[in-house]
């Protein structure tokens, strides 16, 4: 009977496939790591992965391939919670890795203390990108709240970068009027009143600002700002660094449950440790991220970073968990900016 023959053939093929897979797994040589990361780190991790693979092969003889997945930080965290098998996560903010620890229990709650520098091998900050010549004379955060200035920033509910933007503005006002939360809220509300488009991610806002010509100023990651100048031309845009901003610490973490299941703990740990080595720090600075160990980086790369006063989320908001609950949770400070009138409140 043809059906039986077909079934036999199918069985043979699947057996063959299975054998291939088993063989591939049995060979101890090659190993694949999955790094689930956020949006603007594509270029950075491409360079870091190559460097690590070379170093690992030289020291152990094992061939390692690192697959990087990029997307909005919140969305990536959700994918990991929903079962995406990430050996390591390198996200935009600690809050998203906290969420993975809380919702999926795949890594311990104290993940941030397992690596140096709060588990952040690189930092960045939030700066402004303006149109060439800075026609609206934007220098500092209060300039964004002026009427007639159109500000582009993504939605903090969906974008990790946007949360840093929002918190930077809030922290600025808190620094000027220590402890005055009401004043900070007023400034942030006034800024969001000037936002005509809330994109869902940082790259979306970059497109809206750079290609659709919407807005006078884009609030952006510092590394993304450098990339915009590189990509769209330094003759079209200027970077304005405010005198005060937030120290963004995008952290990295090992996903214990996944590495133990896949047997990749050793190489995954080495990969994360590698990010803090002088070689990696050099690459980090080259890719417009501020290295957490600047002494290892090329001074010419470091010279590109403007000096400004930086505050951390811990200093200004008492940690990510608190900031998340007070500002971005359902019905919290950010939601309160938008009221039914159709315009930002007050």
């Amino acid at each position, binding site marked *: 009977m043809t059906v039986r023959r077909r079934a036999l053939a199918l069985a043979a093929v699947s057996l063959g496939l299975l054998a291939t897979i088993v063989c591939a797994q049995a060979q101890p040589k090659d190993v694949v790591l999955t790094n689930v990361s956020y949006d603007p780190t594509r270029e950075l991790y491409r360079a870091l992965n190559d460097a690590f693979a070379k170093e690992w092969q030289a020291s152990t003889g094992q061939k390692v391939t690192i697959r990087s997945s990029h997307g*909005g930080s919140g969305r990536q965290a959700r994918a990991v919670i929903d079962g995406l098998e990430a050996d390591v996560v390198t996200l935009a903010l600690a809050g998203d890795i906290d969420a993975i620890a809380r919702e999926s229990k795949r890594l311990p709650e104290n993940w941030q203390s397992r690596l140096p520098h709060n588990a952040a091998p690189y930092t960045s900050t939030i700066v402004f990108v303006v149109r060439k010549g800075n026609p609206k004379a934007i220098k500092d955060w209060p300039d964004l709240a002026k009427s007639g200035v159109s500000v582009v920033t993504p939605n903090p*509910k969906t974008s990790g970068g946007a949360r840093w933007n929002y918190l930077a503005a809030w922290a600025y006002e808190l620094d000027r009027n220590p402890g005055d939360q009401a004043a900070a809220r007023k400034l942030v509300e006034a800024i969001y009143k000037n936002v005509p488009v809330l994109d869902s991610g940082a790259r979306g806002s970059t497109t809206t600002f750079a290609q659709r010509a*919407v807005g006078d100023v884009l609030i952006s990651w510092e590394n993304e700002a450098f990339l915009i100048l590189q990509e769209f031309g330094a003759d079209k845009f200027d970077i304005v660094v405010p005198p005060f901003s937030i120290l963004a610490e995008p952290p990295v973490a090992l996903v214990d449950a996944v590495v133990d299941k896949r047997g990749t703990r050793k190489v995954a740990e080495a990969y994360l440790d590698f990010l803090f080595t002088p070689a990696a720090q050099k690459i980090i600075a080259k890719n417009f991220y501020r290295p957490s160990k600047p002494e290892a980086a090329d001074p010419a790369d470091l010279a590109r970073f403007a000096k400004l006063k930086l505050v951390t989320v811990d200093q200004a908001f008492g940690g990510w968990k608190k900031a998340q609950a007070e500002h971005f949770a359902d019905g919290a400070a950010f939601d309160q900016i*938008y*009221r*039914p009138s159709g315009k930002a409140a007050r």
Partner: protein
Amino acid sequence: MNLAVARGWSPTLRRPSALPGFGITLGFAVSYLSLIVLLPLAVLVWRAGTLGLDGIWRVATTPRVLAALEVSFVIAALSAVVNAVFGTIVAWVLVRYEFPGKRLLDSAVDLPFALPTAVAGIALAALYAENGWIGALFAPWGIKIAFTPLGIFIALVFIGLPFVVRSVQPVLQDLDHEIEEASATLGASRRQTIVRVILPALTPAVLTGVALAFARAVGEYGSVIFIAGNMPFVSEIAPLLIVTKLEEFDYASASAIATIMLAIAFAVLLAINSIQAFSRRRFGDA
């Protein structure tokens, strides 16, 4: 039970038919629909159910959610109506006239189907932004299209068009010329022929197209977010709010909004189907 039906055990459940295989095909249809459609929907409702009925109601009646639902359903309905009119005209042209490039035009109708919606959204946003080809034409009059509700409307018209055209086209093709000729010989004017003979015959097909276009438009996400501006209370669509809730790891609220959307959409589609059934009865099968 399906077996019983298959052996013709319950003749009361169906009208006698000369075609064999009713039981087995019905059994297959029911299981298939359950597996592919009903099961996922059941999971959705079950997820929302963790909030309880009053919980769902509380989520659904917050001003932000109400505003988003209004934006989604009103603009989807408007776009479906516009597509009904212009889609029918397109179908008419494609069926009734011969002209060079007709095949090309005919295939172009399907493009909104084929294109990944995100690509469509980015293309539309580029076109209708103030520095885009079409957006620049309207900018001098102070009319903004991209990043306003008008942008959502345009995206929804774009993705809905093929549904109406492809529903109306075959019916129009099968419509006998003799009926129109008969109408003319009986003394009807051209207008009377269109209004009283052709349109009634087309109504069920147009309604099918409208229902499909509407259903698609309500759930559309990919193309809309790039052109909508996504401002709460102005141009935020309900599917975006669902995604936002998911990013907050608030699965229950996301499911609650989805369940509400499902209920409203189901009610609207049921209403359209009833009108359709009514017009079929009235004007005969088309």
